[in-house]
């Protein structure tokens, strides 16, 4: 069984796309439709990589990313952001949260902006998981 990739995105089409790319490259996909569900699955499934959207109902990717990176148990799981939001905007919101009194969090391993070519997504995942 291949390494586990958790896909967090509220758009079923995006999940289907990402699941297919993950499967086609020999990994095992796990799905979550929002940030809250994402956090549950991270804790339960201990994935090797998280593929994370930013704008989602319930908990957003911005919050989930913070929770992952400030948790001792989870902070070493690599995170790839895949979002329609520009990287700049995402980093700015993280900076604002840090200034608001949070811990400083590192930048994500890779930041991809939608739309992404299947090839690029596959190379990114392979690059991290080997």
């Amino acid at each position, binding site marked *: 069984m291949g390494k586990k990739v958790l896909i967090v*995105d*509220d*758009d*079923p*089409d*995006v999940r*289907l*796309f*990402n699941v*297919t*790319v993950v499967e*086609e490259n020999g990994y095992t996909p796990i799905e979550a439709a*929002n940030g809250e569900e994402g956090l549950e699955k991270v804790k339960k499934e201990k994935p090797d990589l998280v593929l994370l959207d930013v*704008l*989602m*109902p319930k908990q957003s990717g911005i919050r989930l990313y913070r929770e992952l990176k400030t948790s001792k148990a989870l902070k070493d799981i690599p995170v790839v952001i895949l979002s*329609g*939001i520009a990287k700049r905007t995402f980093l700015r919101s993280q900076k604002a949260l840090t200034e608001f009194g949070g811990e400083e969090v590192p930048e994500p391993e890779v930041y991809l*902006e*939608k*739309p*992404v*070519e*299947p090839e690029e997504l596959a190379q990114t995942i392979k690059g991290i998981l080997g």
Partner: protein
Amino acid sequence: MAQEKILLIDDEEVNVRVLSMSLRADGYEVVTAYSGEEGLEVFDRESPDIVLTDIKMPGMDGLEVLRRIKQRRPEAEVIIITGHGDIESAIEALQYGASDFINKPIRDEALAISLKRAREKLDIRRQLKAYTEDLENMVRIATEEVHRKSNFQAKLIRSSNDGIVATDDEWKIVIFNPGAEKIFGYKKHEVVRKFDIHDLLPSDVVRIFEDGNGEQKESGWMETTVTAKGGEEIPVRFSGAVLKEKGKMMGSVAFFQDLREIKRLQRELIHSERLAAVGQTVAGMAHCIKNILHGFKGGSYLVDIGLDKNDMDKLKTGWKMVQRNIERTSELVLDLLSYSKEREPEFQICSPNEIAADVCDLLRETATENKVELDTELDPSIGMVSMDGKSVHRALMNLVSNGIDACIMDEDLTKRHRVTVTTAREGDDVVRFQVTDNGCGMTDEVKSKLFTSFFSTKGAKGTGLGLLVTRKLIEEHKGTIEVDSEPGQGTTFTIRLPVGKTEEAQNG
């Protein structure tokens, strides 16, 4: 009691000695003279309060002394000493202003009474004098105060930013401050005592004054325009009052605030808000389109894999994905078009109930698939009205599908989810539509962002334009839209639309 000084005048030395002794014994200060002439000299030198003079003296007699003393100081008390039975002289003396007279031989009691009376008169006069002085002082202070206040008020009126125009009881302008000069373009001297209120103010404002003539009441602020000297129409806020005293008109006063600057700022604000909205719209649209593009890529990727591996399932899934995203693209474009286009409502005779029923028929399948009941409660008294049926249809479609989505998104699976569309007549010319769901409801935060572009709680599913479009349609129709929502309880949207009466619509 102050020690009174008495001047005693008598040509008989014995009398003077005896009387002065007894007066000193009574506590008076006594000065004496032995003739009328000497008496006057002493009077001038000593300024006694009371003069006691014998009437019959060689040289200047007592009556002459009395006359001259009264000329010198009318308030001096003069008591005349007359011979026994000399009533005529006594009366004459009183006519000259003597305080009293006593007969010779002088009895102590009579003298005491007479002096007491004189003292009392002196006291009263002193008090009166003090009181008068006090009064004068008070008048002076009050006058100063009034002066100060009126100065202050004059300055206040002069330095007020508001234009202040006041008239007398015949509507002639008497006050015209620099604020008014700025607004109306006239100088004070061109207006004051030359202009009537009718020459300066528009007729609707004058009417308010004349109507308000019955009672002293401020008109409250209203917006109007006045015509300045150069003919320019100036937008102003106006408030005025007819001033009355004891039911009689004293005059009137009007306050004007120049709205030119505010109007200019408002225009600028609207302009910059529009620019900001354009920026937001572009950013929101970009995000929406990125998601759709991602869907297309995903779809074509799946189709590719399906073709490569001859996997019909993947091929079908991929093709459906492409189709869904075509649908999303066309929805976005439609929403954008109806949001960006300015349009006038197209009024036609139609039945609000039929529109509501049609919307429910169209969405019933989706509702049933998701286990949501879709009901109508339609007011049969509405009948046919004149309104823009297409706009209302579009708005209701948006609200009802929102309601269904709110039920789908609700986590409480024990609820029997339901969306109800209600119609009702409110008075003669308003129709109310309500769309109520018992779905997930909204937090205040969501409610506050409800009508902003590209805000969506539906994640990738929503364009974030639906409610914006709905509101625009309703506002173009001069209607209102309100929302009431509790998290976990559900949401009600209420639309109120002014509609033309059918008869009018048919006749027109």
